Every structure is written in C-alpha cells, then in structure tokens.
C-alpha cells in the first residue's frame, strides 16, 4: 500500500484525543444522592459490565474514525493487476492489444497470453464494447469496437504468435485511435505482452501519448532470468579454388541474458544433416562470439544450410525460433576466364595466349573446370564482365577509361585479374588507369639479355624464391616442385618501390626483383606478372611448372561464392524476385511447413511476404501445374532463405517508464484525475482506497452515534416510530 499524501499520516496523533476524552469522562460522572440504592444495585448486576464495554467500544469507534479519516486524507492506494475499480461497472470500451511478435514463442508465454485474453473477454459486460488488435499486424483481427462477444472470442481463439517483430507503441497508438470513436464513459486499453526491450524503439521523440488509461498485463513468470541465445548472423565463403568445394561458414552466437552461458553446441546442418559441430566453452553475458565451421561440399548446385544451437534444452533456452539461421549457397561448376589478347598472331605459337589457352584447357576431349574465352582489347567492351570469374590481360598496351572503370568495378565486386607484361605495355597508361588495381606502379622494362646473346646465360635471371604458404605455390614446395625455378627470364618490368596496401610479393627473381605480386582490392584479387606469359621475355611457358601455376592462379583468382552482398530477408519482409526471362506466366515458391505460393510475374518481377523462417525454393511454373516442380525447372539462382528478426531475441524486460511517452504524455491530467478512470502508466492498475475509507469513517461515526446515544432516547424514538404510547408509571 502506498500513499499520495503521506504527510497527512502525522494526523494519526489525533487518534489519541478520544482516548484522552475517555479518560477525562470517567472522572466527570455526576454525584446523585438516591434513596433506593439497594434496588439500584440489584438491577445493576447484569448491566455494570455492559456499561464499561460500551465505554470502550465508544472509545475504539472514535479512535477508529479519526485514524480512518487520517488514512483517507493520506490517499492510500494499492497497485493491482486485477481489474477491480468501481469504474469497471460503467459501460466500457476496451481495446485489447495482444503482443503476437516472435518473442511470445518463448516457453509458454503465448498460452499465458491467450488464457489471459480469454479471461478478460469473459469479464466483459454485455453492454461493453471491445476491439482486438495485435502488435505484429497492422490490421484486425477485430479492428473496430463491437459488443459481439462471440466474434471477439472466435478472433481470440484463432490468434497465433507470429515470427515477425511487433511494435507495441504503434499498436497502442492504433488502440487510441479506435477508442476515440467510442462514446462510452469508460474507455481503456488492455495490453497483454511480454514487455521485452527487443525491438522497442529507443527514441520516443515526436510521439503523442494516448489519452486513455492503459492496463498492462505481463505474461512473464516473475523475474525470469533464463538465458536466451540466438544465432544472429551467418556468413559463408568459398575457400580456395572452387573445385575443391571448401566452404567456411561463420556464425555469430549472441548471449542475450545477463549471465554467462557454458558449453554451447553449434551445429551446421546442410540439407537436413548435421555436417559439422563446434562447442563454445563459455559466452559472457551480452557477448557475441563468432564460430567458424569448415565444410566441404561435393558436386555443384543449390545447398540449403542451417546453423543452429544444438543443445537448447540443456541450456534452458526457451525461445527456440532464434536458435537457428537459414542460408542458401550455390556451388559453381566452372570458372569462366576471359583472356584479353594484346598481341594476337596468326602464327599459333607466336600468339600471346597460345600457351595460356592450352594450359587452361588442355584439350578438346579432356574436361576442365576452367573455360577460357579470348577477346581483343577492343572486344572487351562488348563483353559482360560479370559473367566471368577471372580476366587475364596479356601484353595489352592500354585500356580506355571506360574499360578501365569496368575492370576496376569488376575487381571490386570480387572478380580476379591477372595482368601479364609485354613489349606493348605502356607503363604510364597502366599506372594512370589501373593504378588502383596494380600491386605496384610500373616503371620501365628492364632488359637483361637478348635471346641470341652468347653471354645470356650469365646475364639473364631466373625465378627465385616463392611465397610457399600461398595456395598457388603450396604444391611447388613438394618434391619435383623446383621446375619453376628453372625458368629463364630475359626481360621484366621494373616496378616502383612504393608498396600499396594489401600488396604482397608471391614470387621473386633471383636478382631480388618481384616476379609475381598479389593485391587484394576489396572483394577481388589482382596478380601482376612482371614478365610475359608467352615466350617473349621468358621461357616460363615451356617449363612444366607453367601449367599448374596458371591453373592454380586462375582458380585462386576466380570469383568466390560468398554471402556478402546477398539479400538477407527477415520474416515479414517483402521479397522481390526478378524472373525476367525465366518465367513469364507463373512462378511457384515453396517453403517450410509445406508452404506454396503461386505467383504471376508483373513486369518480370514477383513479390511475396514469407510468413515463417526457412529456406524457400523458386520454380518456373511454365509447364503443367502438377508436374511443375521438377529439377529441370528449379530456379536455383533465385532460391532464398528467410530468418526471424534479430531484435526480438532480446528478452530483457522493458525498463520502467519505457512506455510512458506513448501512454502518459500528460502528467497534469493524471494528477487532476478522479483517480479511478484516468490512471495511466505503471506496470499495474492503481486501486484507490480512500473512497472506501471515507465510507468506513461514516460508518464508524454512525455506530458511534448509535452506541453513544442514551438508550432512553432510542427507546422513545422507537416508540414514536412504532406509534407506541409512553408507559405510565403509577404511584
């Protein structure tokens, strides 16, 4: 019990006044000589005790009345979550706001919410009207006030918790709008929610509070501090050459509770099977830990994966939906290589790319994952670079600005670039246009010896040390790997000594000059070979090491499959798919829980709003409807995954007063209110006690009057009321 005016309690001292009066009164009896004292005494035996008892009762009643009055002045009230105000008996308009956001899936919160809603609906009087809205929906289920109880109950029983985030403040404002249409005297909002901080706006600037009392009913069981873990992110990337199919899946696990959690099992599940697991020993309260899992996928095509917490029961994590994250990744079959020939020749072996093309695609009959396409520098503009994984420029003199920009963008987006030198290369043009890509700026060509120079064996240099740990050169460290070092080099391009960021030397000449350099430019990689890839400046193409080096370089440079830049969808988001050229009439999207959407493209686009988390597959529905979903018409490139919104994982209770800007914008109104119909804010409803106390004061005073009044007066009054005659006493 609390008091609005606790200072008035000092008035309790006044309760001593009746006691003092009682003590004084005892001494104030009037002396009365009386002859028939003997007879009086005989009559008094029964009555003496009652006199004393009556005096004490009188005193108690007076003290009680004073104490009750003082208490009433101090305005006591109780905080109660039960609806027990006298205002409840007035016809009421009630808008029930039920939180159906993702966090309500926690444990049995949702069943608690529906139970509570059922009870509240039962408590409605026939003359009350009500509406029912939810936080995760922007309309309905009963968006207008109605007094049809059956309709409300049906809507309540069909409610289900959603997997989307909800906005409690917006729902309250909506409830306020609904209530403003009512003309009943008593209007209020009842919010049934878990009141979690997750997804709640941190700033409340510019919001206007609703003008109605808001009763808040929490479904939490006391101070629930059970841990909640969530997989908050998954990223994946292909490691090494695409052909190896090695993937690294990196997941982020966050601990949303306020205590550390130990022994978290993180599983990677691909196509329904657990393929890898990791154990996180301990995760601090509020901390996020990244967990990387390696996985090798054989074969090409679409793969659906899930990273999930494998032991939620052991961890006592009761919100299951955020314990997993879905993702979709595609295995590429081939690496497309675009070879730009700066010095083509009709004589095959003199062609700049003669050796390279054969190294990448050794024969018509043999299968290779590398698919070379050769163009001239002029033809480069006609090619869509995005379709290629690697571009190799061999002895290209210069590129115009447009092509240079295309190339720069290509690399930034993850493509690989291999630049080989040659006599035509214009160093200045390269530095100017491709400077941001080159591992080091070019200076000039250094000629060591002519081919026919007899002193050539002395003057020339050879390939020297290599970066042995680099994926490309790892195999040259193995037995028989020295073939690279046997290559002779007559000329090479000298480079400026500056070292741009992310630039490393992979291979050097024996004279110390760099031979092969790598630079990472955002998502892409660039190799710069300071000599030629034909026989112009070196005999490297003739060496046995050439073929594996080129192939490994192409695979290494090839665009990596990665989750970066992928669209990430949360439940409730609108997914737009571009099906131009893939399906004209019909698109079928299938998802978890046997969901099936049949969509008609409009201007080449289809849109849908996935209601649950999971992997979704897209099919071209051009064929007959029954046989439409076959492997042949599956659109792997459009497959997508949908996950639950992250913000709902934070189950921390809302801080006190967080809702105040929406439900209590006018403190004065509350102060001036009558205390019953205008109460707002607070986690519970305020139940005022002083009207009852004042009633009790009145009762106590009435009783005091009755007990204090002389019985003779009462008897006389009674006789008057009942029309009895006064009894005569005869002598």
């Amino acid at each position, binding site marked *: 019990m609390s008091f609005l005016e606790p200072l008035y309690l000092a008035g309790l001292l006044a309760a001593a006044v009746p006691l003092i009066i009682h003590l004084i009164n005892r001494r104030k*009896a*009037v002396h009365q000589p*009386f*002859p028939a*004292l*003997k007879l*009086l005494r*005989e009559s008094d035996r029964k*009555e003496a005790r009652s006199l004393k008892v009556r005096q004490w009762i009188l005193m108690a009643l007076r003290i009680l009345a004073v104490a009750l009055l003082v208490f009433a002045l101090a305005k006591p009230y109780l905080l109660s979550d039960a609806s027990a105000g006298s205002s409840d008996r007035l016809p009421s308009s009630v808008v029930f706001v039920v939180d159906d956001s993702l966090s309500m899936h926690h444990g049995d919160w949702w069943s608690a919410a529906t139970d509570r809603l059922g009870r509240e609906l039962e408590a409605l009087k026939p003359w009350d009207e009500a509406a029912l809205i939810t936080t995760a929906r922007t309309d309905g289920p009963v968006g207008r006030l109605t007094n049809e109880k059956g309709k409300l109950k049906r809507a309540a029983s069909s409610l289900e918790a959603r997997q989307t985030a909800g906005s409690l403040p917006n729902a309250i404002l909506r409830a306020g709008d609904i209530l403003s249409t009512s003309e009943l005297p008593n209007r209020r909002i009842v919010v049934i929610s878990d009141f979690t901080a997750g997804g709640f706006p941190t700033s409340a600037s510019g919001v206007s509070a609703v003008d109605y009392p808001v009763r808040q009913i929490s479904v939490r069981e006391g101070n629930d501090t059970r841990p909640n873990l969530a997989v908050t992110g998954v990223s994946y990337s292909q490691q090494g050459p695409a052909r190896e199919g090695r993937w690294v899946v990196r997941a982020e696990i966050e601990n949303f509770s306020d205590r550390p959690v130990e022994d978290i099992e993180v599983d990677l599940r691909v196509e329904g099977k657990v393929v890898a697991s990791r154990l996180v020993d301990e995760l601090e309260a509020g901390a996020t830990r990244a967990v990387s899992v390696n996985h090798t996928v054989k074969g090409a095509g679409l793969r659906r994966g899930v990273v999930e917490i494998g032991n939620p029961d052991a961890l006592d994590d009761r919100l299951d939906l955020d314990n997993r994250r879905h993702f979709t990744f595609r295995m590429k079959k081939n690496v497309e290589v675009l070879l730009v020939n700066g010095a083509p020749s009709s004589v095959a072996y003199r062609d700049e790319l003669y050796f390279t093309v054969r190294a990448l695609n050794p024969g018509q009959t043999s299968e290779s994952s590398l698919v070379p396409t050769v163009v001239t520098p002029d033809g480069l503009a006609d090619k869509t670079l995005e379709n290629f994984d690697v571009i190799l420029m061999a002895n290209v003199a210069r590129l115009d600005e447009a092509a240079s920009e295309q190339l720069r963008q290509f690399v930034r987006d993850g493509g690989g670039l291999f630049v080989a030198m040659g006599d035509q290369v214009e160093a200045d043009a390269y530095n100017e246009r491709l400077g941001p890509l080159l591992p080091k700026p070019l200076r000039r060509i250094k000629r060591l010896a002519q081919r026919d120079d007899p002193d050539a064996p002395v003057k020339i240099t050879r390939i020297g040390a290599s970066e042995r740990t680099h994926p490309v050169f790892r195999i040259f460290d193995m037995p028989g790997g020295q073939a690279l070092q046997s290559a002779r080099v007559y000329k090479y391009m000298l480079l400026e000594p500056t070292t741009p960021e992310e630039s490393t030397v992979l291979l050097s000449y024996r004279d110390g000059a760099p031979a092969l350099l790598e630079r990472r430019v955002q998502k892409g990689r660039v190799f710069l070979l300071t000599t030629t890839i034909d026989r112009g400046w070196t005999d490297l193409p003739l060496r046995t090491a050439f073929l594996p080096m080129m192939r490994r370089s192409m695979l290494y440079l090839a665009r990596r499959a990665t989750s970066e830049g992928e669209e990430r969808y949360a439940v409730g988001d609108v997914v737009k798919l571009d099906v131009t050229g893939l399906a004209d009439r019909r698109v079928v999207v299938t998802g978890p829980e046997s969901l099936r959407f049949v969509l008609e493209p409009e201007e080449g686009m289809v849109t849908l709003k996935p209601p649950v988390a999971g992997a979704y597959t897209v099919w071209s529905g051009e064929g007959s409807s029954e046989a439409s979903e076959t492997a042949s018409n599956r659109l792997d490139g459009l497959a997508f995954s949908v996950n639950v919104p992250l913000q709902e994982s934070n189950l921390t209770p809302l801080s006190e007063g967080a809702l105040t800007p929406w439900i209590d914008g006018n403190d004065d109104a509350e102060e001036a209110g009558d205390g019953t119909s205008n109460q707002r804010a607070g986690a519970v409803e305020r139940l005022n006690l002083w009207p009852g106390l004042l009633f009790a004061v009145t009762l106590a005073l009435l009783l005091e009057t009755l007990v204090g009044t002389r019985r003779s007066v009462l008897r006389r009054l009674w006789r008057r009321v009942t029309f009895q005659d006064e009894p005569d006493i005869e002598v």
Partner: protein
Amino acid sequence: MADSEDGYLDPGILEELGNMQVRARRLVDGVLAGLHRSPHHGGSVEFAEYTEYTPGDELRHVDWKVYAKTDKYYVKQYEDETNLRAYLVVDGSGSMDFQSEDAELTKLRYVSFLASTLAYLFLRQGDAVGGLSFGGGERNYLPASSKKTHLEDLFFMLDRLPTGGTTDLGDALRTIAERAPSRSMVLVFSDFLDVTEPELNLLRVLTEQSRDVAAFHVVDPAELTLPYEGLRIFEGLEGEGDLLADPDDLRANYIERIREHMELVETRCREGQIGYHRFATTQPIEEVCLGFLRGRQ
C-alpha cells in the same frame, strides 16, 4: 394564599407557611371542607379503667386514693379518651431525606405535615394522639394524650424529626407494641425501602393484637422513574456507599424491581388487614388525608 386548582394546598406553599400549628390548621381546614361534616361524635366522660402513670400523663388524672392504697400511681381513664388512641410512627431515616427535582418537599417533610395534620384532626375531635419517631438509632416517643396542649409537643417532635442513619422500623414497631394499648390506632409513615419480611410480619402482629394499623407509604416520583441521564455516581442516603452507573442501562430493570417491591409491601399489608396508603410527594397532602379518612368511614 395561592391554593392549587382543586382547592388543596400546594406542598410548596405549605412549606412557606409559618409554624407547624398554622400549617396544620390550614391543612385541616381543607380536609374538613372536603369531608363536609365533622367526624366528631361526642364523647362520654364515664370512668373506664386505670392505667399506670407514665411521664406526660396529666397529673390531675392521677388517682391519689389508689396511690394511697397501693403506693403506685394510676391514672384514671375515661370512656371518651379510650375511644381512640392514635400513635404516629414516623420514619426519620436517611432515605426519607430525599427530594427530587419534581417534588416540592422531602419525603420526611411531607410525612411530617401529613402526620401533624392527622394529629390536629384527632385532637380536635378529642382523640388522644401519641408519637414515635425513629431513625439513625434515635427514637423519640411521646405518649398519647388528648390535651390541647399536647399538640405543641407533637408538633415539636414532628418538626425536629431525626434525619440520617439507617431505618430500624422493627425496633420502632416493637416499642409501639409494648406501649400502645390494644384497640389503639397505629399510623406508620415510611418509604418502606428497607423493609423486610420480619418487619412486615410485625405490622401484622400489631393488627392481630387488636390494633388498627395503617401504613403510609411515601414515594418520591424520581424513585419510580429514575429520570436521570448521563453517567452518575449514585450515593446511598443511609451509608450504603455509592454506585457508578448509566441510568439508561438500569432504568428498565430498576423500575421493574421497585414495582415488585411496592407490590410486596402492599400485598403483605392487605394480607395482614393493614390499611395501605401509597402516595407521591407531589400529591396534595389533603388528598392523602381524605383518602385515609374516607377509607375509615
């Protein structure tokens, strides 16, 4: 003189009158006016008997011849004298000294007026009147005499009745039984508040000994109704201590109790052939006298 409407004297006015004789005379005038005829029947002067002398007897009635023979004083009694000897027994205990707001007189004053009126009447018709007052352990006895001057003695006694102390009606009645001859009249004036069964029996014994006994039961109106309000400390008038009580709590029981008591006294008197007269101190005294005299006719 402001008389009350029915021609009786207001007790308050009576109190203001001068000495007892004036008051008694005024009262008797009223009584006689009410009777319309004199109760005087004339008397015989024939010798009736001798009685032993007691102080107060007239010396002229002493029979000296008998004295010469027997060496004892005997007084000659004549027929007219033996016609009626009345003894006024007046209770002067503490409880009689009570006067409520409604009453003009204390019970004691009231009965003394009443007794003096009756004494005057008796003497006026030649009857002998004696007196006995008691209260607080004190008893004053006056032998019966029909001399006119005896009235002074009676008035003196009634004017100076003892006030206070306990009631000892039993002792008084025993004294009367010893002193009053048979066929005499005994008038007992009391509030009978402390009267007990043995005392009521004594009254009956007096009747059985051929005496004409009448009980004058005086009551103050407050004793019947207990009209007080508010917390009171009731103090007994005969040293019974006091009682703190709210009259409202007691009234019903008390009224029932005092009614029972009065009925008991009345019943016992009626059973013993004793004339019983109950009256409140607010009643005119003449009315009480007339009631008594008419009862006797």
